[in-house]
């Protein structure tokens, strides 16, 4: 109950403080972005995520309050910023989405199939359960330092795998993540491309996801961003919470470590 009140209070505080910051400053769109002021429709999704956390759901009719995101059962403040990390109960490194999936299955009795049926919104949707929960949980880490686990050997091998995957060129276009995100000061069309191999670029990117994508009217998560980059690389569909999805996020989070979480952001 106390944590719920604290969470509600922090949602109220959101209304007073600027809600987000653009990930990149690149001149040409400054006027456009400035006109948005601090009105980010992500507030709706954050609210819904909070409700979902405390709602009884699934065959077991349970809330997610018993979910351990790494800092103990039910601790939500600061948990997002310390992911991905190794969890002994699953014996694997997990990002926010695979951990939430684990809790939905274990605590609420949901099935993997239903969780994976539509984890991310299609255009025109107002949001999925996963997106709402991730948005709220990320907001619970706003202002805190990004500090993914790197003490456990599995966490270090996840980083190494993430690096390999970052440079993995495949598909008809020979693209890898590094094709677009391996140099600084570049852009695609007019969009600035953060150099995700360097701290500054990784910090800008990692700290601002999840984000409300104004082009889509949807809050998108970092897991979705990984999936969509692979789509644009002409690769098959990345599975939410999979080994590769987690490894790439570990690679980015470690490169971004020390930077301050500022999500949910607002993006093109």
């Amino acid at each position, binding site marked *: 109950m106390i944590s719920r009140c604290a969470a509600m209070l922090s949602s109220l505080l959101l209304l007073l403080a600027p809600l987000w910051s653009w990930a990149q400053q690149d001149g040409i769109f400054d006027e456009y972005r400035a006109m948005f002021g601090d009105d980010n429709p992500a507030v709706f999704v954050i609210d819904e995520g909070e409700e979902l956390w405390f709602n009884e759901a699934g065959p077991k009719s349970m809330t997610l309050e018993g979910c351990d995101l790494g800092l103990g059962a039910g601790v939500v403040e600061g948990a997002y910023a310390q992911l991905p990390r190794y969890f002994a109960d699953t014996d694997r490194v997990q990002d926010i989405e695979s951990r939430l999936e684990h809790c939905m299955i274990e605590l609420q009795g949901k099935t993997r199939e239903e969780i994976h049926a539509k984890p991310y919104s299609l255009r025109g949707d107002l949001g999925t359960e996963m997106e709402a929960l991730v948005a709220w949980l990320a907001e619970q880490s706003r202002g805190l330092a990004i500090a993914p686990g790197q003490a456990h050997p599995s966490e270090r091998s996840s980083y190494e*795998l993430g*690096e*390999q*995957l*970052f*440079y*993995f*060129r*495949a*598909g*008809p*276009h*020979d*693209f*890898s993540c*590094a*094709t*677009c995100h*391996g*140099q600084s*000061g*570049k*852009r*695609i*069309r*007019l969009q600035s*491309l953060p150099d995700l*191999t360097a701290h500054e670029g990784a910090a800008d990117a990692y700290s601002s996801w999840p984000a409300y994508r104004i082009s889509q009217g949807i809050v998108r998560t970092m897991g979705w961003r990984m999936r969509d980059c*692979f*789509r*644009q690389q*002409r*690769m*098959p*569909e*990345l*599975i939410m919470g*999979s*080994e*590769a*999805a987690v*490894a790439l996020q570990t690679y980015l989070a470690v490169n971004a470590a020390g930077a301050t979480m500022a999500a949910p952001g607002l993006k093109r």
Partner: protein
Amino acid sequence: MKTIKTLTLCCLLINAAVADDAALALKSSMADKNFVTLDRVERDALQTFCSKPRSEEGDTETANDLRESARAAVPVPAEGDFLGDWQRGEAVANNGRGLQYSDNPQQPNGGNCYACHQLDPDEVAYGTLGPSLTGYGARGQSLSMLEYTWIKLWNTHAYNVCSHMPRFGAAGILSEQQLKDVMAYLLDPLSPVNSGLIP
């Protein structure tokens, strides 16, 4: 000499083994979607060679081999027939669709040149991953210039191994006719890429 070569080969094999782990992890983390299937995770020799983090030096001999085999496989149009229609080429340069699982496979693929290159000086939405090609036609119109451009578009690795540019011809992204249209967009004096820029 022979020892060195064996050692290099040995290192390459070790690298390949590590890379295979990445491929396996990726395969188990992905699912077929529409017409895009898991075989896209399989890499050819060039892709594997070019998948190293920048800090790792690739060995020159392999790079030379890859460059030569890329060059040898480029079909060069006969009779110097390189140039199509610049207006159709402009559409190819602007179109970023094709081969993504969200794309309609019945539609022709785009070249998406503007994602990375400046071309028409009046188009502000151009990327900077590749060099500006504005005024490209002023670089020359000789047969060797045409042939160079054709090979570059067909398989960039024939000149620059591990360039970021897709192999538009060799990978079957664009048709020969589409490539000729892009050639015209780059080289035709009437193309906006060259407007007023060819003396």
